[in-house]
Structures are given as structure tokens and as C-alpha cells.
């Protein structure tokens, strides 16, 4: 299950996707909007994405995770649009037979998501709004390094 949504993320339905009688461990990551960034108060954040490519990049990441770890079930949901402090913007859930694999695969997915998936965030702070200063995505940054 890989999904881009503009609605509130329903955690129960994601967890249901991880059910598998052979899986003994589920590792879950929930990314929430927090109220501070670089020492400043954050009120809300607008998430903007290239949805078609988000989907295809997430599918590649999921395939890489499955190739590297014995994943039973896997779910990735990313929310776009305006979000407020405490809102859940991304959820990654991975079930495996053993917990070490589940942790590693889950962490790989969120780490890689942040390096490759085309998402942008506009931060609304007490001192104004600004696009969050991002990173050149992983697969292409090399061309800028001599």
C-alpha cells in the first residue's frame, strides 16, 4: 500500500495492512508536524508534491526495501496540503518475521523518502512564511559536485 493523500491519515487502516500471520515484528514511523524549527515557532506547514513521481519513487523505495530485507507487508502513506502542529504527515509501516529487519527496513524507507521523493514544504512561522530550505535529491546531486 503506497498512497498519497490530501486527507487525514488513518493509522488503523495502515496497521491493518501490516497484518500477516508470519510477521512477528512491526516497525512504524509516524512523522508529525512539530511546533518548532531552528528555534522558531511553527504554526502550520503546506506540503506540496509532484504526486505522480512521489508514487513512482515510493514504489522504487518499497521495491528496494523488499529486495534488501525479508519484508512481509509494507505501507507508506504521505499526506499533502496544509497541516497543523500535531498532524501526521507521513506514516511508514513494515512487518517482518523478526524485529531487527522491520526496524532497518522502516528506517531505510523514511531516510530514503527524504532524499528522493519530490515533496516541498512551506513553513508558516511566527515571523512569516518560507519554503523550507531543502536538499538536492540524492540521485542527481553528484552532477553538481566536481
Amino acid at each position, binding site marked *: 500500500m503506497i498512497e498519497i493523500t490530501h486527507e487525514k491519515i488513518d493509522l488503523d487502516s495502515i496497521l491493518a495492512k501490516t497484518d500477516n500471520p508470519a510477521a512477528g515484528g512491526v516497525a512504524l514511523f509516524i*512523522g508529525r508536524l*512539530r511546533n518548532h*524549527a531552528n528555534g522558531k515557532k511553527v504554526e502550520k506547514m503546506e506540503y*506540496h*508534491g*509532484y504526486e*505522480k*513521481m512521489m508514487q*513512482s519513487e515510493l514504489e522504487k523505495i518499497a521495491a528496494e526495501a523488499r529486495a534488501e530485507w525479508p519484508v512481509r507487508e509494507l505501507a507508506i502513506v504521505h499526506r499533502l496540503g496544509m497541516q497543523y502542529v500535531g498532524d501526521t504527515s507521513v506514516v511508514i509501516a513494515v512487518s517482518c518475521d523478526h524485529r531487527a529487519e522491520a526496524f532497518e527496513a522502516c528506517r531505510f524507507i*523514511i531516510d530514503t*523518502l*527524504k*532524499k*528522493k*521523493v*519530490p*515533496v*516541498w*514544504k*512551506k513553513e508558516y512561522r511566527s515571523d512569516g512564511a518560507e*519554503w*523550507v*530550505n*531543502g*536538499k*538536492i*535529491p540524492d*540521485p*542527481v*546531486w553528484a*552532477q*553538481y559536485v566536481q
Partner: protein
Amino acid sequence: MTVKVLFFAMLREISQADELDLEIEKAISAGDLFDALCNKYPDFEKYKSIVSFAVNSEYCDRSQVLNDGDELALIPPISGGRHD
């Protein structure tokens, strides 16, 4: 030939467009097309050294030459990295 260019985040705000259909006379690379767009949108200039490119939803080098019907996405630095 025709190329569709997609704008995101601050590039969308600058261009005030989600996308643009461009008629192009001769073969051009993604990077050169971005440079040309800097004439149309001068505020694009400061993203010149940090913008990435994707053609038909696949990341590519700035030297990739565009074909008729291609969808070129201009990818500003992605912003997952800071809030973690």
C-alpha cells in the same frame, strides 16, 4: 516538438503557473531549457545551481536532451531533510 514543463513550490509561485506547454524548434537539454526559462522568469536565476530535473517522472542529469512529448519537471531542493 512539444515539451510540458512542470513547476513546483517556489518555482510555481514565481511562474504563477502549474505547468507550461512549450513549442521547441530544435533539440535542447533540460538544463538549457531551464536557463532559457530564466529569461522569462528572472527570479528563477537563483535556483540555477540547485535545481534538479526529472523527465517523465525519472530523475535525470541536466544534460539530458528532451524529446517530443516529454514532461520535464523542475525539482527545487526537496525539503524532507530539514525536519527530521
